[in-house]
């Protein structure tokens, strides 16, 4: 009789600067499934991890924002391709995290993959939609272009562990921002799998940094961080007010908390992108 195989259990880690480190604090916390059964230990990110993530995101910003929109679109589409290849793992993750039946979880994964495709197609079109030439009353050529705001902190939805997460991360990076993402406290594992997809999809290291743990602990450090340009308070809930106050220290662009019953399956619209864009207007005289 064959010897029973001992399965290989996974230590879940942070995704930071393109690598998978443990929390510098050495801490972890127990993740349970929707019925409260132990699933795994996840890294419990610290203030230092959050600050390291900002450094990584800032370092990645010039390269990612300077990449052509076509290139960013290719990379985002690649994320969809790689997710498709790992869909069984995502379905299992979502089943466990959100307590969905297999079929429902499968449709969540479908929608999440399709969302990447949707945003992949936006990268080289948004400037034409929200920018353009302005008819000024003088001999000048004048045009406006959208540009990424910079480093964006994202507090992911607490109850939509994959589709909600993708819906707040993809629009931020599609336009050339880099992101520090705090995943759902109680359902971090679909996000950890997503991080593994990002790491193998030509997304440059540091463009997305994903921290598992307790946003109530780490979000205040991001909200008050002077090298973070914007914050999406999507999953912040009641903490949103204090975080918005802290964000005023350097006038971060703030997206306020979404309602808990937000329908993530609906077509997103462009607000999630335009909230983290700056409009730049350039003038030049006309003449011979």
């Amino acid at each position: 009789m064959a010897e029973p195989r001992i399965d290989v259990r996974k230590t879940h880690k942070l995704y930071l600067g393109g690598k998978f480190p443990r929390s510098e604090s050495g801490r972890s916390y127990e993740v349970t499934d929707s019925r409260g059964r132990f699933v795994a230990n996840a890294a419990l990110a610290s203030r230092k991890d959050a600050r390291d993530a900002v450094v990584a995101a800032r370092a990645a910003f010039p390269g990612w924002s300077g990449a052509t929109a076509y290139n960013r679109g290719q990379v985002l589409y690649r994320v969809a391709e790689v997710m498709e290849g790992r869909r069984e793992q995502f379905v299992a993750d979502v089943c466990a995290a959100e307590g969905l039946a297999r079929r429902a979880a499968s449709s969540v994964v479908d929608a999440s993959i399709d969302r990447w495709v949707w945003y992949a197609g936006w990268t080289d079109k948004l400037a034409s939609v929200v920018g353009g030439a302005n008819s000024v009353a003088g001999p000048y050529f004048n045009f406006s272009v959208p540009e990424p705001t910079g480093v964006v902190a994202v507090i992911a939805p607490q109850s939509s562990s994959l589709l909600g997460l993708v819906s707040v991360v993809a629009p931020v990076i599609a336009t050339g921002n880099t992101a520090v993402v705090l995943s759902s406290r109680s359902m971090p594992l679909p996000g950890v799998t997503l991080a593994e997809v990002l790491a193998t999809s030509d997304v440059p290291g540091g463009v997305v940094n994903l921290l598992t743990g307790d946003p109530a602990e780490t979000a205040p450090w991001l909200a008050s961080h002077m090298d973070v340009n914007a914050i999406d308070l999507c999953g912040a809930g009641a903490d949103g007010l204090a975080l918005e106050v802290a964000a005023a220290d350097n006038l971060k662009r703030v997206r306020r908390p979404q309602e808990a019953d937000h329908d993530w399956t609906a077509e997103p619209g462009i607000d999630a992108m335009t909230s983290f864009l700056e409009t730049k207007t350039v003038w030049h005289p006309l003449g011979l």
Partner: protein
Amino acid sequence: MAGKPLLSKPVLSKHWEYAPAPESRSVVSLLPSYGLFIDGAFVDGGAGSGSFKTINPATEEVLTEVVEASSADVDRAVAAARKAYTRTWSKMSGRERGKYLFRIARLVQERARELAVAETLDNGKPIKESRDVDLPLVAAHFFHYAGWADKLAYAGFGPNPASLGVCAQVIPWNFPLLMLAWKIAPALAAGNTVVLKPAETTPLTALLFAEICQQADLPPGVVNIITGAGATGQALVEHPGIDKVAFTGSTEVGKAIARAVAGTDKKVTLELGGKAANIVFDDAPMDQAIEGIVRGVFFNQGHVCCAGTRLLVQESVADDVVKALKRRLKTLRLGDPMDKNTDIGAINSAVQLGRIRAMTDIGEAEGAERWSPKCDLPARGFWYPPTVFTGVTQAHRIAREEIFGPVLSVLTFRTPKEALEKANNTPYGLSAGVWTDKGSRILWMSQHLRAGVVWANTFNQFDPASPFGGYKESGYGREGGRHGLEAYLHG
């Protein structure tokens, strides 16, 4: 002061002896006092209100007395705006709203000379600027947004864009009527009603604008003007009955507003401070660049948030540029703002003059070299000569902090990348200038400068069709053009 120039001869020029050419102030007849403009009528301040005088900063003469609105007055104004929104303005078709704005634009044009004189009297800016820059832009702004009122569905904010409700608008003293236009025109076009507070030191043209609203038969309560100082503004932006805050002013107050609205549904746009770099490369068209530097920082006495206060000049031409700049500054004429030949008018207030003096003293104390053309300042009023600091480093406070006066800091660079790094080394990001003959360099610099407006081979150009606003701590949201509508609509 009518017909009697403040200075009998030009101060800064030895080349020309211009005869005084004062604009007549007889086109403006001011009342001894003004009330608040609430619900279509001028009314007295209620319980808790006070009053204060507004003066001509060029002479310190009292122009008129206005109400310092109390929080009870703010309540009244917000209630009037809400009523007008609910009962009238939000129900009116865009086409009809637009026609009111066209009427206002025409009335501004008809009363342009009077408004320009009033602006110069109250603000201290040269009449040639209020006449040739402020007022034409005010009328153009109302014209531009009048045309948007019935075309909102085509503006790219969804097929059924909706107005927000009542807007609280707080504006600064540097371009009083122009900032009013930037605020009120898009708000009304989008179907909102407004309560606007002009700056404490420059309430006059906003009160004359209230008369224009009456002349245009604008429904009562659509526009309400309340005068006052910081406390009135604070009561307004914190009022629970408003849906939107639009503020132009200091970054410090902007941050306080961002904190105050946290956790509410109020939409916010902030147009704040700046410390713009004006970058001159060695191949720049030099004569135009010198004019651009002067226009960039001495326009409106440097009371301009997007002023090009940091001159970054390529090392190889730095000496020549500074020399040419000083020669040009000697020809500027400082004095009576009502004189049509005046280039540099009065500093807006004693408080602002004190700030400019303090900052320039710090510049000297920190080791930069101060220079001003020989310049007699009038005995009365608030005046500061055009000033250039050379030998400035990035660590100097005059290179980091907004001075909001006619003060230029000169720094040098060797390579485009160094210029870019220095230009972006600021918490602000409102505007920037680039002077070079090389097209690809203009576009590369424009792309990498972290600023909302980039002027290439020009500076300080404004147009109602052109979005204006900052990156980073210069605020958020845009004013002007299609982009400016977004601040006043729900998608």
